[in-house]
């Protein structure tokens, strides 16, 4: 939109195993909803990664994006796995492939993909990602033990650049505030953060640069969190940070190659 740029940090495309993508099976569906709501760009993951696995999802995501994203508005998110089975290339090569394919961030699904998210499995990869400031998505829904798993991960990789997603609609301040307080690399995407006046509270406590607009598409639509950020009560320069500039900065500072 003319007065505010929005960069969606949290959305997914692809056909989920249980259906219900409601138009999000393709990048065209996502782009149409972005247009209807006035969202400029999106960082997009595959919606069926948990069921179909990282290998399929990482590849299929690129196919889906290439099929419809003629204006390069979408940046991909790739899923990581433990190093020992050699399913993904070594870190440097993997990051170079990300750069070559317009993939800007990482995620992980240790419970669904049956591995332990710890130093033994992803230590080398996460140390390299932290050093290169590559953003990694982390959420209570996908970690063993929920929030305990998120806390363990952050204690193990305290220097990581992390985007906490899927915070749950039940006000999550008791869990996200300790993370924001203790880990400067922690950011929160706001698609499920519906706390009244809460965006302004978090910005005042931890800085607006720690918060990111996310739609949560296709489970959620784009517009509701746009309006809550627009009228968070924060100064417009902070609104702009949350709406798009923070994510632009995170992706720009990542040194993939």
């Amino acid at each position, binding site marked *: *939109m*003319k007065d505010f740029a929005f960069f969606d940090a949290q959305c997914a495309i692809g056909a989920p195993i249980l259906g219900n993508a*409601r*138009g*999000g099976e393709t990048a065209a569906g996502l782009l149409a*909803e972005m*247009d*209807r*709501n*006035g969202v400029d760009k999106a960082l997009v993951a595959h919606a069926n990664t948990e069921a179909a696995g990282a290998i399929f999802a990482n590849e299929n995501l690129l196919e889906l994006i290439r099929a419809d994203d003629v204006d390069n508005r979408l940046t991909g998110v790739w899923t990581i796995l433990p190093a020992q089975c050699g399913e993904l290339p070594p870190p440097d090569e993997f990051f170079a492939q990300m750069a070559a394919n317009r993939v800007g961030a990482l995620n992980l699904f240790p419970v669904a993909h049956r591995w332990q998210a710890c130093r033994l499995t992803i230590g080398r990869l996460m140390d390299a990602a932290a050093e290169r400031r590559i953003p990694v998505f982390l959420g209570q829904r996908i970690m063993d033990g929920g929030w305990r798993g998120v806390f363990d991960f952050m204690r193990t990789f305290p220097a990581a650049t992390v985007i906490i997603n899927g915070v749950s*609609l*039940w*006000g999550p*301040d*008791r869990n996200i505030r300790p993370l924001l307080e203790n880990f400067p690399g922690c950011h929160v995407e706001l698609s499920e953060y*519906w*706390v*009244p*006046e*809460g*965006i302004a*509270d978090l910005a005042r406590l931890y800085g607006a640069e720690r918060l990111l607009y996310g739609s949560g*598409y*296709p*489970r*959620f*639509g*784009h*517009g*509701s*969190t*746009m*309006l*809550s950020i*627009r*009228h*968070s*009560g924060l100064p417009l320069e902070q609104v702009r940070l949350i709406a798009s500039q923070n994510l632009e900065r995170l992706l720009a500072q990542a040194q993939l190659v």
Partner: protein
Amino acid sequence: MKKAVWEQPGSLAEAFWKNGIADIPIYDMHGHMGSHNAIYFARCEAPEMVAHLRRIGVRRLVFSHHYSLMGSFRNQRVHAITARFPDILRMYVSISPHQTDFIAEDLEQFDSMTPLAIGFKFLPDYHKVKVTDPRYEPVLNFASERRLPILVHTWGGSPYDGPDVMLEAATRYPQVTFFMAHSFSGDLPGAKRVADACPNVYFELTSLPGQHTIIERLCADIGSHRLLFGTDMPWFDEYQHVGGILSADISEDDKHNILYRNVEKLLGKDW
């Protein structure tokens, strides 16, 4: 790029986007108050809640107090809080089916709590008692005699307040206006079944605005004339929920119906 929903000239979405408020009243028919066991609420007392409501132009918030629903805080105390903000707050008298002595007291004192009290709130899923259980009968009979609304927490698949139970209750008490809180949490076939059979039923939207396509499907299947806006305030931000209505792919009329017209048809403008 085509104009976004927020840029449509003269629309409600444009007004709220630009100004944070529009030239319409908003009736929030589902609120609470007070702290919560599992959630930190920075703004759960009346003054802070009212400040948030005024920012977006909520004309009335009808609430039930967490402490009355979950604890033993009496409704008269809620009335005293409501009376501090009579220009914006209204209350539901909270009912726990396990406290029969409280129910007797509440019905006896109901007149002293009007006009700020407009009806009752049931929370069957939490109290684990079916709405059709005899313990709710005194309240249902009272509401029926006076044609009062009852906001009932409803959830798809629940044995206490799911579509089957609510169909039975709404059929048995046709004089009661039932507000189905959360509209059975998106169990659309269930909601439609109840809507088709019971004209005395309205569907309240807390937690649904923002969920992709659900407002569109409720408008298509049930009709926007049966939908009521609500937020569970202090659970959910007014801008988030209003944003979910305004950005839904529905008509401008649908949005007006949901945010205020249906309530004004039901309760008038002066209550």
